[in-house]
């Protein structure tokens, strides 16, 4: 284009002649490779056949990718702190005789996400996390079932799933008697029905009050 402003056409809807692309003018034949200058002797046996240049090449790339991989692992490990500030999972739940036979206690649902169920033979504790996607189900005493508001999974009072998308029963937590005679619950010790763990000690506390 000229340096002076031109006044040729003010019309704009005329097609422009196709401009030759720069790339097309550049040759695509590969450049000749430079001959290697310090090739190892042909009769050199074994590992020593590698020339100094080869070793530097391999070592250099090894160091490069080694660094990338280690950094990635380090960054990933960084996301897992050694100490977590989460509320303790073990807690005392009052005296066993305070619970009414046949009732599901919601006393610790808000704070610890655990229901404590008192049956005639004893106690069990159900973790109030839906096995489908982790919502908190509701206990509906009139229907005698747990119902999850997220996707409608339903569980019997025992925790067994019977409707909706939940793939497995609710989990039970450890329940025992502490030294001072109070109920003791540990949420971190879980008992899974589908693994046949509901019969194990701790999953059910025998208590005849």
């Amino acid at each position, binding site marked *: 284009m000229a340096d002076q402003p*031109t006044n040729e056409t003010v019309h704009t809807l005329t097609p422009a002649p196709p401009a030759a692309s720069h790339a097309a003018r550049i040759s695509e034949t590969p450049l000749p490779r430079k001959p290697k200058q310090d090739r190892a002797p042909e009769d050199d046996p074994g590992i020593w056949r590698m020339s100094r240049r080869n070793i530097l090449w391999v070592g250099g790339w090894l160091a490069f990718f080694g660094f990338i991989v280690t950094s990635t692992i380090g960054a990933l490990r960084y*996301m897992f702190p050694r100490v977590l500030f989460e509320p303790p999972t073990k807690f005392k739940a009052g005296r066993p005789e305070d619970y009414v036979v046949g009732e599901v206690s919601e006393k610790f649902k808000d704070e610890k996400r655990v229901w404590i169920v008192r049956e005639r033979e004893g106690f069990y504790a159900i973790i109030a996390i839906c096995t489908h996607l982790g919502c908190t189900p509701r206990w509906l005493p009139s229907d005698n079932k747990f119902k999850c508001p997220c996707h409608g999974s339903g569980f019997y009072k025992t925790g067994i799933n019977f409707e909706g998308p939940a793939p497995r029963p609710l989990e039970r937590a450890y329940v025992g008697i502490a030294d001072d005679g109070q109920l003791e619950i540990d949420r971190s010790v879980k008992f899974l029905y589908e693994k046949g763990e509901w019969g194990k000690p701790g999953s059910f506390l025998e208590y005849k009050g």
Partner: protein
Amino acid sequence: MLTQLRDQFRKTEVYKSIFRHSYQDTQRNRALQIVDNVFLHLHPVRVPRHATNLGYTWGMGGITFLLFIVLTITGVILMFYYRPTAQYAYEDMKYLMNDVPFGPLIRNMHRWAAHAMVLTVMLHMFRVFLTGSYKPPRQFNWVIGVILLVLTLLLSFSGYLLPWDQLAIWAVTVGTNMARATPLLGHEGPFGPELGLRPDNDVRFVLLGGTEVGPPTLLRFYVGHCIFLPLIATIFMIVHFWRVRKDGGISGPPPGKNNF
């Protein structure tokens, strides 16, 4: 008098150093307007006429970019009043909505623009599919576009948690709980337990910074939402726009009417 002053001003060195060409309506000046402007030189000097036809382009890609800019600006303004800790986040939201002049406007704009952006991204993709614009030579730019779609969804999703209200925490609980079930990487996914994964060492933990949605989650989502994801999205957007030009500008039927 004013015209004289204007003409005088246009002759000064300062003016000439900023605007390097006259504004007379000529072909050349129209071209220079694009080429000499750092923002406009994203565009070619000329485009096929159907590129200015809204019926063809729907304008959704451009609107998406505009919304991204709006979101960046309003987002930075919101950061003046927001602290990403469980203790303050909700209080700050109340403060912003009740006691900050134009606070609600900025927050509303941020939220509605975010919703609108997800919508325009989907419509943009729909249009590009329907006109077959992903076909050669634009295959790779479609892939970049899919990545940008995912980034848009992640940006929107991570922003969802920040108000720290019931809507936020449960939407994110439901959303991130799916990560528990990731095959091989989640503690409830197929083969997860067999590989020794627990709630405190699986892929969901990386997202949440804890075994459930809690204060560390808020911080992680905040950093992701404000720094990490926008940065990555920007990089991919640069590539996306650059590729539009390099792949031959806006898509269209093959040149020449003999092809049909």
